[in-house]
């Protein structure tokens, strides 16, 4: 009996195995959940409503934690592809369309590797170090306004302070990793990373103080609202030096080229991450890519208008489409439009290219229809919902900066450690102080 089951199991494809595991598992989870909802539904809703802030926090934290994974994958793919194109190579092009699934494969590979703890390491600290680094990155995302009313955690009036405080926690993680590895090179790498991150924290924070003086608030949401209007209201035109210092120090904070000395892979094996392997190693690198996103997002929020549109739409859209008003017509529309549109879009291919069989034309038409439908739905959402328009603007601007970081990495060589420290203390710090004093003087002279 067991032998027969085993044989049947070995004959299943991978997809079949996944289905066989996932479906019973889902049933086992959902059925008790449904029963519980039916039995104690009212009580559960009451309990959740009573603890709304907590529930909100948990949901937001989970959503943001989940959001970082595709973000990191996307940035890793961008990095591979963009740098390859800049090096006149083709880059990843085997897995997925244009190789876009390669970063996912990388993630799976890292998951499957052996997770090794060296003898003599402090297992507790060793295990928690990547978690601290990763969470320090992810938790900063909680206060970033992704769109109007789209925050992880409310409109905190100390958001900027929170951001830098939590962001600074990653140093602790780096030191933990370096110290607990029981390896002097890891320890040196950790100290080196800590020295760099702490040094650049100062100009990074100081470059924003001028902006805080101008805005009179540390709430990121209000800083964004302050810049609403056209792109001429962006803080980048009020704090040009501040932007420059912020971007340079942010590059160093995120451990990116030309300041990626913490894991300079061609010089010091991997710095603090030398003894790490498997997914724990992966977390450090996930954190790095999430950091790129975070620095870009903060730069956009503070200096480039956040989720506000750079130019107001000159022609206001009159009348909004409410799909609900169509009534039963909507159902008919949903049933008929895909078929008709697919046929209509397939027709030109079928007519123009006699060598193309009908089914190929139909597939092409279907794909085209899907593309058009996605564009149409996005456009409709963009027009109808403020927060979607804001989110699209925000992500668009953020990825422009992510691209710039990748572009920098494709261009610049790494600096020396003494140049790195000298630059932070001799140039960036005085420059940020100058920026602060100039801003303060301007406020005093011109008046608020």
């Amino acid at each position, binding site marked *: 009996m067991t032998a027969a089951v085993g044989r049947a199991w070995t004959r299943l494809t991978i997809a079949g195995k996944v289905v066989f595991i996932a479906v019973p598992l889902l049933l086992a989870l959902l059925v008790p959940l449904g029963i519980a909802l039916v039995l104690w539904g009212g009580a559960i809703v009451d309990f959740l409503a009573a603890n709304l802030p907590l529930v909100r926090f948990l949901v937001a934290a989970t959503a943001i934690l989940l959001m970082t994974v595709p973000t990191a994958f996307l940035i890793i793919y961008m990095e591979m592809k*963009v740098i390859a194109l*800049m090096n*006149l*190579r083709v880059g990843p092009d085997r897995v997925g369309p244009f190789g876009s699934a390669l970063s996912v494969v990388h993630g799976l590979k890292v998951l499957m590797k052996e997770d090794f703890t060296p003898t003599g390491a402090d297992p507790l600290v060793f295990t928690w170090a990547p978690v601290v680094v990763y969470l320090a990155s992810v938790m900063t995302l909680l206060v970033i306004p992704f769109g109007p009313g789209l925050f992880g955690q409310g409109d905190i009036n100390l958001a900027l302070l929170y951001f830098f405080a939590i962001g600074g926690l990653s140093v602790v993680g780096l030191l933990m990793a370096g110290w607990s590895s029981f390896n002097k090179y890891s320890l040196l790498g950790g100290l080196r990373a800590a020295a760099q991150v702490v040094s650049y924290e100062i100009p990074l924070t100081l470059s924003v103080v001028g902006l805080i003086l101008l805005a009179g608030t540390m709430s990121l949401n209000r800083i964004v609202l302050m810049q609403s209007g056209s792109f001429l209201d962006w803080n980048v035109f009020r704090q040009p030096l501040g932007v420059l210092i912020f971007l340079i120090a942010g590059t160093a904070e995120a451990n990116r080229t030309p300041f990626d000395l913490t894991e300079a892979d061609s010089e010091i094996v991997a710095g603090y991450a030398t003894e790490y392997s498997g997914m724990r190693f992966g977390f450090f690198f996930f954190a790095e890519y999430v950091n790129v996103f975070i620095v870009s997002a903060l730069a956009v929020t503070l200096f480039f208008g956040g989720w506000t549109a750079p130019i107001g739409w000159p022609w206001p859209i009159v009348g909004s489409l409410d799909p609900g008003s169509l009534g039963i017509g909507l159902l008919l529309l949903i049933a008929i439009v895909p078929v008709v549109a697919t046929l209509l879009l397939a027709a030109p291919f079928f007519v123009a290219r006699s060598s193309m069989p009908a089914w190929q034309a139909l597939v092409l038409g279907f794909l085209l229809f899907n593309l058009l439908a996605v564009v149409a739905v996005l456009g409709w959402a963009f027009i109808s919902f403020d927060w979607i328009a804001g989110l699209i603007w925000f992500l668009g601007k953020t990825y422009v900066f992510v691209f710039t970081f990748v572009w920098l990495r494709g261009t*610049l060589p790494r600096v020396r450690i003494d140049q790195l420290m000298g630059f932070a203390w001799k140039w960036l710090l005085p420059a940020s102080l100058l920026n602060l004093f100039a801003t303060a003087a301007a406020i005093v002279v011109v008046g608020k």
Partner: protein
Amino acid sequence: MSQLPGLGIVKGMAVTLRHFFEPKATIRYPEVAATITPKFRGRLQLLYDEWGTLKCETCFQCAQACPIECIDMGGTDTKGRYHVHWGAPETYGERRDESALRRSGRTVPDPAYTHFEMPDDLAAVDAILDEHDRDPARMLAILEATQARYGYLPVAALKRISHATGAWYAMIYGTASYYRHLRFEAPEAVEQAAAIADHRPSEEAFVAALDAALRRPGRA
């Protein structure tokens, strides 16, 4: 500092951005095959027949046709006359030795000279060449005079003529092999080759084995 600080970074980023949009030269091989010009012949290779002897007859037509003169011949052919090999100098050991010697600064022995019987003096060839003004257009007269002097056309003499007139060795060989009254071996060597051709042990053994395999009685 002669330029603005940070200008170098801007320039570098302009370069990388330009490269970003440039078309890439990579050919995705299994899906896309490279376009090969119709005259491309691939790597040069000498073919052997089923008895393991070189098929090359040293007719030098390939060396004559080669537009970039990359074919260089030497060695022994099917009749035991020339040691035949060709192609890029790196591809055979003899040439590797030669280039090693050349790099070390020592004189390089030329197997084409040393393998064959050297005429006592090439002064006679030089005299003939001077007499004919070292004119490649008068090649037949030069070759006839050389054969009259030595009794046959030694390889060393042909090389000397090639060097002096500037005509390719391959072309001189072609000219010489075209005329039946010109010969490359001394008459006694021809007799020796004929004697070898009369008695080829490996071929006889092959024919005997073939007969045995086909269950045929031995032929007369």
